[in-house]
């Protein structure tokens, strides 16, 4: 009892030691007194004093309210930790910086800490009940902690190239997708929204393309669990995103690190009373821009004009549409894009509860997203639930658990290069159907396009969009748990176990009102997939500071196992359309298929981070990966890295300059791998499918053949990267600049290596190719204004230059990107040694021949108004020898510029983002501008003697051509690999703009809330581009990065207007 009280006293003494206070005098007096008197008296006095103190403390508490604000802009600092000095009591301030704390009425010292700010101590006078605490920002946020592979580091101690994005920056946008939120945020990170479908796809490339066949997707690591999925993440759950870019940062992920690593850390509650926050947003989505198509009367007139050119060999053509019909069409026109696109709502609810005690921290969040797509019959729903828990079991052991479950259902009628005919692809056919066609016939059935004009082979666009039954569901569960032991001072062991289980359950049915259904008498597809990944990481970390040395050693043993199980059924020839795919027994033709793959990755890795005197930084790491997918002779790959950095700003001679608040030079080197070998690719395989009627009966006989040769030496693709970087801060941290130069060489690319024919094989997958990437990245951020209007701005720009160095046996690889019917049946996308990814090859196009050029045109057998192709070799002929580069799909530069303005309770945020120098091959225009069937308004702009300044060729009639008696030397036939369809797809876009208002606390507190924010937001409101298609950001063929840059009937992106509300209490 006495001891306890004594401790209390000591703590009181400690609390009050540095300042003169009445109680101190009292205690001191008491002590002095005690020294001079008998023990009994001492005990009694002490007891008395303590009792008095306790009673005083208990009876004389008060409620202190306050607010934490930032010194330089007076804005609230949310989430600061306020602790009573000398006690273990602490609480967290709310999102608006406010807090409420019960303290004694004595003078009390509060210690206030918040990441990014200098720690502050604040003395509360006995009389104060409401205080304002100001915090000063720490220079350049250098004490921020950044998550790195298998650990974390102070930002100032980093030696690698890492871009860090805070969760708050993402939730400022009204986005529901983490991958999209990355766009424009980090230098060197190229995010391409390949289609605009709800729940659609993105391609993320960190520092260019390393691989041709191995995949270029960055490794996603969510809370330490590798192989996560960005789509299913709820952006509100994210604490931070780190993009690891150079080899120093990524080599720790070894054979998975070559394409960069995106680390995602989710939130955990802070100590204090539960914080409940709720967000709601409602948005409407609209087609951003329609394709220019003719109205019914214009189409009829154009079709007539073209029909009248068919007057060769003395034929007398007749117009397709009569004058009366054209008159009728003036008032009866169908805008097919209006028919299949709609204004679609999107709504999102998020609820989270977080908090914690001394021993337990938690976050529970749930989300519901419901997005209708702008294309009829498309939509996306996501239900998500997350539980993050951390608990200290004892002083030497703690445990944590993260679980997230999501259920997604995303459906869209087929678009782009989907595995169905484009004749029944609504996005494709809607602009191609003439406006003369009604949606339904008089009986209410879908209108069937009549023969004789337009595109009679295509299917009714509305039927194509509306009729397919699409029921696609994905359930994901990710669980990750750990135990962390503090073994000795500075030595911790963390044992983690995690699993990601994905179940895909898709049902598709094309009934007989659809093109596919009509072709197949009903077509049903069932797809069931289970993808399970398991990971165990055992991380031993030793972290010690002695004198000027700071040493962190990390050693990890890790094993990963994944299993992918697929079974699918494709059924056709259904007797009953109504039951369709839900009664497969009713189908006459049922083709099942199934497969199973497994892969194992066993790894050992280690890393040393060493800092001397806060100036000289060294990181070295080494990883050994044993992968089941590697060949038997190469089961283990080794990935070293090393980097150094010098914080010059810590040197006196720099300090004395008084310019830099921080200056750091970095250099790194390392080797990473890409283990994107499919399971079993190194083994020889027996395949079915080489059937032959060997027995000579009426049925064929099964033929099984050796499909490929074994390659026991097959291994990872190896990327060697160097990086030089500089980070500096000026004006006391108000301007921060980071710049990096990198150069990567990827060798041992997986490519088919041709084999001699006598082996019986044509090729074998081998490590033969090589690709180089180099680039520059700049990130500049700062606070140009700090007064009553505060302006934070962050700009990043990066350029990557890519070169194919070696393709093995060949100099050139062509990639076909076509669905047929577009006269691009031979490749126009090429990988060429010495040239970058994304090269487009074809015939140069220089517009149309003018009347003044009649003679030159005649040399090619052409008339004025005919297309003018580039005669590259000047031989008077246009043929394959004139084949040339007509475009490149990848940008020279990408950039993003994010701005936040604060004025009182208002905040305006906008992100401008764009690309420069990339081209798109717009395949759609080939048919839209085809004179015989096209609907594009471009045909109205066609060449006429009066209108020669156009690149749209004239409708020249056959008789005129016959009379001219010319022989054409344009020998490209119907080949449409022409530059005419290549357009500059550079763009600048106001990606997002958000205006928000935080309701003053004085109002909010009356309704027992701690924070209320309302906002209005717009996405994709303004796009500046020369590109004529739906959107400059598109890619229809994504099987290989060499095919990026083709626009073919992809789901167009939309613009979104959103209104939202955040409430917390």
């Amino acid at each position: 009892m006495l001891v306890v009280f004594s401790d209390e006293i000591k703590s009181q003494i400690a609390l009050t030691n540095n300042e003169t206070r009445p109680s101190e005098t009292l205690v001191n007096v008491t002590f002095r007194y005690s020294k001079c008197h008998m023990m009994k008296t001492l005990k009694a006095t002490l007891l008395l004093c303590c009792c008095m103190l306790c009673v005083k403390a208990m009876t004389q508490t008060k409620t202190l309210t306050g607010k934490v604000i930032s010194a330089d802009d007076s804005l609230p600092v949310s989430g600061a930790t306020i602790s009573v000095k000398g006690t273990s009591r602490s609480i967290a301030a709310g999102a608006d910086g406010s807090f409420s704390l019960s303290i004694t009425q004595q003078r009390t010292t509060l210690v206030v800490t918040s990441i990014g700010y200098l720690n502050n101590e604040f003395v509360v006078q006995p009389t104060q009940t409401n205080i304002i605490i100001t915090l000063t920002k720490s220079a350049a946020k250098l004490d921020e902690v950044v998550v790195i592979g298998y650990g974390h580091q102070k930002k100032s101690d980093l030696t690698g190239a890492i871009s860090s994005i805070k969760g708050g920056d993402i939730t400022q946008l009204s986005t529901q997708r983490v991958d999209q939120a990355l766009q424009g945020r980090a230098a060197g990170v190229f995010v391409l929204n390949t289609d605009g479908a709800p729940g659609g796809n993105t391609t993320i490339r960190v520092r260019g393309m390393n691989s041709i066949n191995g995949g270029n997707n960055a490794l996603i690591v969510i809370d330490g669990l590798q192989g996560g999925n960005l789509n299913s993440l709820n952006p509100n759950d994210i604490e931070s995103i780190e993009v690891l870019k150079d080899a120093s940062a990524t080599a720790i992920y070894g054979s998975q690190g070559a394409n960069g690593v995106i680390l995602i850390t989710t939130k955990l509650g802070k100590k204090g009373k539960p914080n409940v926050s709720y967000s709601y947003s409602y948005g409407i989505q609209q087609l951003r821009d329609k394709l220019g198509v003719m109205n019914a009367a214009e189409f009829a007139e154009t079709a007539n004009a073209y029909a009248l050119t068919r007057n060769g060999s003395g034929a007398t053509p007749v117009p397709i549409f009569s004058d009366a019909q054209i008159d009728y069409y003036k008032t009866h026109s169908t805008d097919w894009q209006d028919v299949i696109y709609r204004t679609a709502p999107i709504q999102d609810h998020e609820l989270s509860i977080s908090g914690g005690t001394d021993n337990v921290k938690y976050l529970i969040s749930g989300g519901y997203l419901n997005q209708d797509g702008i294309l009829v019959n498309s939509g996306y729903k996501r239900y998500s639930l997350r539980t993050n828990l951390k608990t200290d079991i004892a002083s030497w052991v703690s445990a944590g658990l993260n679980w997230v479950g999501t259920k997604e259902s995303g459906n869209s009628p087929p678009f782009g290069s989907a595995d169905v005919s484009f004749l029944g692809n609504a996005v494709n056919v809607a602009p191609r159907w003439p406006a003369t066609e009604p949606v339904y016939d008089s009986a209410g059935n879908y209108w069937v396009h009549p023969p004789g004009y337009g595109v009679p082979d295509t299917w009714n666009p509305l039927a194509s969009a509306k009729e397919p039954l699409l029921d696609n569901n994905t359930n994901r569960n990710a669980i990750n748990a750990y135990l962390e032991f503090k073994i000795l001072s500075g030595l911790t062991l963390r044992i983690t176990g995690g699993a990601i289980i994905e179940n895909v359950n898709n049902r598709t049915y094309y009934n007989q009102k659809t093109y596919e259904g009509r072709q197949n008498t009903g077509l049903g597809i069932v797809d069931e997939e289970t993808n399970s990944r398991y990971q165990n990481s055992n991380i031993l970390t030793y972290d010690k500071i002695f004198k000027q040395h700071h040493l962190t050693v990390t050693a990890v043993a890790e094993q990963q196992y994944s299993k992918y199980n697929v079974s699918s059924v494709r059924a056709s020839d259904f007797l009953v359309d109504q039951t369709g795919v839900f009664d497969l027994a009713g189908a006459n033709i049922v083709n099942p298929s199934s497969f199973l793959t497994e892969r194992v990755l066993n790894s050992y890795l280690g890393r040393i981070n060493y800092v001397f005197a806060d100036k000289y930084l060294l990181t070295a790491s080494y990883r050994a990966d044993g992968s089941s997918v590697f060949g038997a002779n190469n089961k283990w790959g080794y990935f070293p890295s090393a980097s150094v950095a010098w914080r010059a700003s810590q040197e006196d001679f720099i300090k004395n300059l008084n310019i830099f608040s921080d200056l750091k030079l970095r250099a790194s080197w390392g080797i990473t791998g890409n283990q994107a070998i499919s399971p079993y690719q190194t083994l020889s395989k027996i395949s079915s499918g080489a059937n032959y009627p060997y027995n000579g009966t009426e049925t064929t006989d099964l033929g099984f053949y050796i499909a490929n040769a074994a390659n026991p030496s097959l291994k990872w693709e190896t990327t060697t990267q160097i990086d030089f970087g500089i980070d500096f801060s000026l004006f006391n941290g108000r301007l921060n600049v980071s710049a990096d130069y990198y150069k990567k060489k990827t060798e041992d690319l997986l490519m088919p290596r041709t084999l001699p024919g006598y082996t019986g094989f044509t090729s074998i997958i081998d490590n033969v190719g090589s690709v180089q990437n180099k680039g520059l990245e700049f990130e500049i951020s700062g606070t140009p204004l700090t007064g009553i209007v505060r302006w934070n701005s962050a700009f990043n720009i990066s350029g990557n230059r890519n070169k194919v160095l070696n393709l093995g046996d060949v100099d050139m690889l062509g990639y076909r990107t076509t669905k047929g019917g577009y006269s691009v049946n031979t490749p126009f996308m090429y990988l060429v040694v010495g040239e970058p990814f994304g090269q487009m090859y074809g015939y140069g196009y220089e517009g149309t021949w003018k009347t003044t050029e009649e003679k030159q045109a005649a040399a090619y057998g052409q008339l004025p108004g005919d297309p003018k192709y580039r005669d590259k070799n000047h031989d008077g002929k246009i043929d394959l020898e004139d084949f040339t580069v007509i475009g490149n799909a990848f940008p020279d530069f990408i950039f993003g510029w994010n701005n936040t303005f604060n004025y009182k309770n208002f905040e305006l945020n906008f992100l401008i983002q764009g690309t420069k120098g990339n081209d798109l091959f717009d395949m759609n225009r080939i048919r839209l501008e085809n004179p015989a069937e096209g609907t594009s308004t471009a045909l109205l702009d066609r060449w006429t003697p009066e209108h020669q300044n156009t690149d749209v060729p004239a409708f020249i009639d056959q008789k005129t051509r016959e009379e001219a008696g010319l022989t054409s030397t344009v020998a490209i036939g119907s080949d449409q690999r022409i530059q005419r369809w290549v357009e500059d797809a550079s763009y600048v876009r106001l990606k997002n703009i958000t205006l928000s208002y935080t309701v003053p606390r004085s109002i909010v507190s009356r309704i027992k809330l701690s924070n209320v924010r309302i906002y209005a937001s717009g996405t994709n409101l303004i796009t500046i581009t020369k590109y004529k298609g739906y959107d400059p950001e598109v890619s229809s063929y994504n099987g290989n990065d060499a095919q990026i840059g083709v626009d073919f009937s992809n789901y167009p992106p939309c613009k979104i207007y959103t209104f939202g509300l955040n409430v917390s209490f």
Partner: protein
Amino acid sequence: MKSKFSYNFILLLFGVIILTASCKKLDEKPKSFITPENFYTTQSQVEASFAASMNYLWDYWGGYGYGQGNFVNDDQYYGGDLVIEHNWGSDLWNAHYAAILNLNAAISAMKKGNLANTTEPDVIDQLMAEARFLRGYNYFMLVRMFGDLPLVTEDTQDPVNAKITRSPVADVYQLIVDDFTEAANKLPATRESTEQGRPTSGTAKGLLAKAYVTMATAPLNDVSNYQKAAEYAKQVMDEGVYSLVHDIHDVFSTATKYGPEIMWSYNSNYEDINTDPQIYRPGLLGGWGDISVQPEWEQQYPESPRKDAYLLTEIDGVPYQQWSDEQRPFIKKFMYDNQDDFDNYSSVMNMPVIRFADVLLIYAEAANMANGDPTQEAVDAVNHVIDRANGYVDNPQHPRLTTSLSKEAFDAAVIEERNQELCFEFDRWFDLIRKRILKEKSIPSIQQNFSDADYLFPIPDNDIQLNPELTQNPGY
């Protein structure tokens, strides 16, 4: 404190153990497909490799289904010019070697005893004989086109990585003779109707006779083989399993595609059609006119019922010279499909590899050459073919042969009979080669393009580039 230390020590030890342990092995064991090591364990798996080997050869565009292009420089096809370029025949090279790969794998597995647990020894013997028959056939085609060959057998270690060299023609024929002999000894003499498309011992003997008669001529010119050729051909004739179809118009009808005359062929049925029959027909009959007949060759073909049965020279009484388009004869042999099949682009005709008429003519040729002049049996053999060609009446345009002919004259007459009887059946080119009469038989307008190099196709450039140990044939 001591206890805390030991506790920490245990934890540390635990950490070390967990850091070094891993439970999943890195060896791959695929579950949804099979590797060659685990295949060829049952009779039907081995037969599946036979079907696959034939599938390679009978590929729609690359193999014999549409493969006449490689033999267009004989004197029969229209369109040849005796210009044989680099990579000529490389599609056939690749197809035959792909077939050989699969057959070698099956042979190797059987040798290792993979079938022993599931299959009776006599069945294994037959399967082995069948695999070797198929391999022998592939090499027989290859050696006649390309000469010395990379000889890949079941004993060849790792042809993917090893830089193997070409074996002399004689060595290749040794393998062919061994394989065919094994097949001739072990294969059944007849097949049930459920297996009617498969080779018999008679098939093997017929091809063995053909191999020997080829070895007796260029390039080996080992005349001792005439006797062996005659012996094996005689065995086929004496066994009585095969015979000539009586009516010349029925030789290529679909009713007789599995005998009695056709001994072995590229098979087809509606599940696995032959090719688009349009390729053989002129535009006037709705075809594409891809493959037609050299008019000069047609003009020296004697008028006979056989000419009517094998060649299309007129439509509704209008001779080809007066057609509005494609003024050339066409190959009627391959027009015996019905109209429905034609309209559906699906020919179910078989393409014969060897038939009894061929065996008769091999016998006639070999017996004459072995004997020094025509024997009565040799004359009878060839006259069977001539009689049928003439509809069993005397035809002054195409008289029967007699024993009074000299050895050389009889030989030339037999080769000419082969020319007419076996036209467009992938046979004429090899006769021109082995008899070294390519130049003299070619039409005069293209003879200036002839060189001795034409007696062999070039080794494909791809293989030469990838394996410098391979030599190119002269003249390429």
